[in-house]
């Protein structure tokens, strides 16, 4: 057997990323180039995995590339060292490797590696010596996210048998988890990764205390691993009734709770963290419908929703990092003048919020389209689906509320700006945030190329292309006018 191509791709990509992290090169533009190249090379792995994994890898690579430069500047400005960059890169690689795993032992290895690195990223402030509470947040993450997930993974490994875990590809496995207790243990374990009730409370602390590039990856990519795990598990022989009940109840509670909590937070990162739990819950609801009904459209909906979420959440966390470094302030009530300093940033944030809310031609629009199409298709089958639609609608309304609250950081001139406190070096990061915002739009069109490559899997885009073109033009117009409006009133 010749050496598997995907192994070669993984190794080469890894080498590029690690070379870019060597102490000699780390602080230069070359580092950014090398590491971005590494991630893009990883993209070649898409051809060896199924659709869900490939789109998750795509999203992961896109944000990792954007974060290469961002984490470099953030790390240098805030901590004066660049050790954060290495950790973040290896963390991103570990997650990408998890999504491209073929065998169960591979999946578990990289999954556990990701969790381990996640711990050290969350505790980073405490290790560096800046803030002691980071260790507490990390310990909470260890107890309530790592341990339950370990239980789930070890149960899956034990039930597969060690020989099969090493030799049989995951898609060919059919693990028997039909015992109700085992089903619940595995599902709750994966809930803890996706931060669904009842193991959701570690996430707001962890994601808000971690450094901004880490938060982007944690909220952007790591919570998706929970959904990915649940998706793999639905293919096995589980107790469907119990699983469905658990998924529906837990996800409904989390969706509303997360949204409500997000609207009352003061810390900008906590708004985003609670928003993550809420969106994960929506994906879990879609997954529960897939479990019951078996229609592939739910999987498309979840995947595109995940992609959209990856892009805008990572971008928003990056923005929160920039705001934090720029103003040394994380409280919504005390901010509001950011647009006066860096209007480009505000524009990027508006674009990402539009993606979150679902305006065409952003990929968020595709996500909402698929979300509502898939649920509406089955509305008349049972009252449960109507209830799900209701919950999703409430969740979206809450999204609007807390998005506006987040936007207040940028455009409401309530806070008093202390000119001397500003750290203008932070402005170098704005380009990376803008990049992430633009990717939200570009991806929509990229997906159409995707469709032609994988003909027959997703067929939506062809039908709505006219809408996308028209809305792109409209969006361009809106953004240009907003930029002019903001620019008029700035100080710098």
């Amino acid at each position, binding site marked *: 057997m010749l050496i598997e191509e995907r192994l070669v791709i993984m190794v080469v990509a890894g080498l590029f990323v690690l070379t870019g992290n060597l102490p000699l090169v780390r602080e230069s533009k070359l580092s950014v180039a090398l590491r971005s190249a590494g991630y893009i090379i990883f993209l070649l792995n898409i051809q060896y995995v199924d659709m869900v994994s490939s789109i998750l890898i795509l999203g992961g690579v896109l944000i990792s590339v954007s974060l290469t430069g961002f984490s470099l500047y953030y790390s240098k400005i805030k901590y004066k060292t660049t050790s954060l960059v290495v950790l973040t890169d290896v963390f991103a690689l570990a997650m990408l490797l998890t999504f491209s795993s073929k065998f169960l032992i591979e999946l578990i*290895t990289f999954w556990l590696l990701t*969790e381990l690195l996640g711990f050290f990223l969350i*505790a980073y402030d405490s290790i560096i010596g800046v803030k002691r509470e980071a260790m507490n947040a990390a310990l909470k993450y*260890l107890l309530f996210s790592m341990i339950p997930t*370990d*239980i789930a993974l*070890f149960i899956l490994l034990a*039930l597969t048998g060690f020989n099969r875990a090493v030799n049989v590809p995951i898609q060919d496995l059919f693990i028997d988890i039909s015992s109700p207790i*085992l089903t619940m*243990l595995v599902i709750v374990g994966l809930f803890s990764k996706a931060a669904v009730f009842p193991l959701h409370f570690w996430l707001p602390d962890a994601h808000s205390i971690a450094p901004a590039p880490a938060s982007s990856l944690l909220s952007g990519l790591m919570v998706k691993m929970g959904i990915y795990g649940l998706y793999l598990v639905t293919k096995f022989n589980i107790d469907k009734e119990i699983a469905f009940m658990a998924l529906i109840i837990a996800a409904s509670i989390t969706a509303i709770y997360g949204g409500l909590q997000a609207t009352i937070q003061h810390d900008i990162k906590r708004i985003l963290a609670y928003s993550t739990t809420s969106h994960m819950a929506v994906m879990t609801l879609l997954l529960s419908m897939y479990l019951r009904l078996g229609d592939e459209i739910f999987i498309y909906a979840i995947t595109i929703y995940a992609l959209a979420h990856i892009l805008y959440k990572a971008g928003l966390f990056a923005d929160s990092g920039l705001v934090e470094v720029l103003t040394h302030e994380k409280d919504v009530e005390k901010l509001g003048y950011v647009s006066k300093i860096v209007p480009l940033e505000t524009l990027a944030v508006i674009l990402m919020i539009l993606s979150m809310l679902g305006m065409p031609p952003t990929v968020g629009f595709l996500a909402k389209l698929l979300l509502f199409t898939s649920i509406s298709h089955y509305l008349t089958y049972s009252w449960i689906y109507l209830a799900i639609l209701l919950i999703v609608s409430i969740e979206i309304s809450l999204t609007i509320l807390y998005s506006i609250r987040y936007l207040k950081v940028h455009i409401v001139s309530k806070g008093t700006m202390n000119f001397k406190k500003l750290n203008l070096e932070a402005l170098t990061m704005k380009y990376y945030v803008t990049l992430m915002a633009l990717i939200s739009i570009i991806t929509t069109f990229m997906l159409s190329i995707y469709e032609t490559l994988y003909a027959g899997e997703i067929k939506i885009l062809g039908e709505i292309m006219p809408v996308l073109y028209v809305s792109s033009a409209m969006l361009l117009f809106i953004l240009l006018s907003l930029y002019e409006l903001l620019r008029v009133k700035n100080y710098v």
Partner: protein
Amino acid sequence: MLVIGLLPIYLLISATLIILVKLILKKEIIVDLTAILLSLVTLVATVNAVVATIERGIIIYRFGGFPPPLGIVYVVDKVSAILSMLGSLSLTVAITYSTWLLSPKWRYLFYSLAFLLMTGVIGCLYTGDMFNFFVSLELLAISSYALTAFYRGSSRAIRAAAIYAITGSIATSLYLLASFLIYSSYGTLNMADIALKARNPEYAVLFSGKVYGDIMLPTIVAMILILWTLLFKSGIIPNHFWLLHVYSEAPTSTVALFTSTADIIGVYGISRFFLTIWGEGTLIEYFRPFLLNIALIIASISALASALLVVTQSNIRRLIAYSTISQLSLALMGVLSGVPEGISGGILHLITNGLGDMLLFYSAGISIISCGKDLSCLSTLRSNIIAYAAFIIGSLNLFGILPLLPGFWSKALLTLGFLKAELFWGVIVVLASSGLCAAGYFKAISAIFNFKRDSFITINMTVPAIVLIILMFSTLLLGILIVLSDVFREFVTQWGYDIMNYRRYIVITLNLTV
């Protein structure tokens, strides 16, 4: 097989030889080299034993040629051999480390006592006679009391040794009482003979005849007494208090030695007595599940309670001590699961715990020498990459999070065992305990990278570095073997079947024609 029979004698002679070399030749370097050489020979001998058990199953050595149950016999199966190999590896490493750690004036005493300890350990692991087990246990215990008090100028060390000695003597006396009960009712002290009579009281064995009297009640009482003694020897809550004192005060190489030799005898003994001798099919079949369940509950509480305490420690020695208690409790749980995979997982967990603890102790030992026992002192390890790499690998091994390290596989085997035995709560206990312990390990690792402490004594670290490299290599080798070779995985799973196979044990030992 000659090597097995010669080994305890050889170890006793080594202990004396070292003292003689020191008194006659006086040069420290010769004493050190002699000790290392003698321990290497031990290592080779135990490897030989492992190979022999793989080829032939069970090895018998009759002392003086007397057939059992008339004479003492050594019965070595795969589990005994593997654990003895772990013990001799840890002896070699401990002696090497001591050449760097201990003061030259008293080093020879450590070597001598370590070899005495090893005699006891080999005796316990290899023996097929219940009273011989007691004798070896006592030899092991007395050597460990002396080793604990090694820093005889420190009142805390003396106190730790006194606590260990007094409570240890009481505990082993309970075992002695149990052996009296067994002898007076069964009429024999040979393990295979007891195993046979417990299942078939009417069978007349050569030299020992049938049973003397009623064996039901004495068996039950003896089992309880033996269980309590062995729970003490492995430091399971509520018999764990001595371990905390000893692990805080004894020299680093002593503690690392204990963790792979003396402290595994408890779990090994329980597996031998409760799975081979009084395993399935004996006349106390109605009582045994009850006792095993109680022991299982005790072990679970011990695992969780000590794991919860790991993260609260600020003294690195006590942190590792609580972690050891937790891991040994998990190994005990595996052994008590009653399923071959769980038992193999328990034995493998003893090995991974030994390797992991040695890595942690030896690397932390460097920071204790140059700074102190506080957790923040670990930052001195940053000066030497081997030191903190060893600490990290040891922690990751104990947490069991990387499939390249054997700790992952022992946890996986334990999980598999509990799933097969339908003890779902056991899975939760195993993973929750190791996760809670990990909180402590990560706290320690974070302390390494905390930039606070900068002033420390610089010391020559070649010897510890060599020791740590050997240990890291062994750990990774074991892990990689398990990942890559399904023959090796099969071998590991066989250990459980081996221990539970009382029939083969009895037949081969007593040379019966079936």
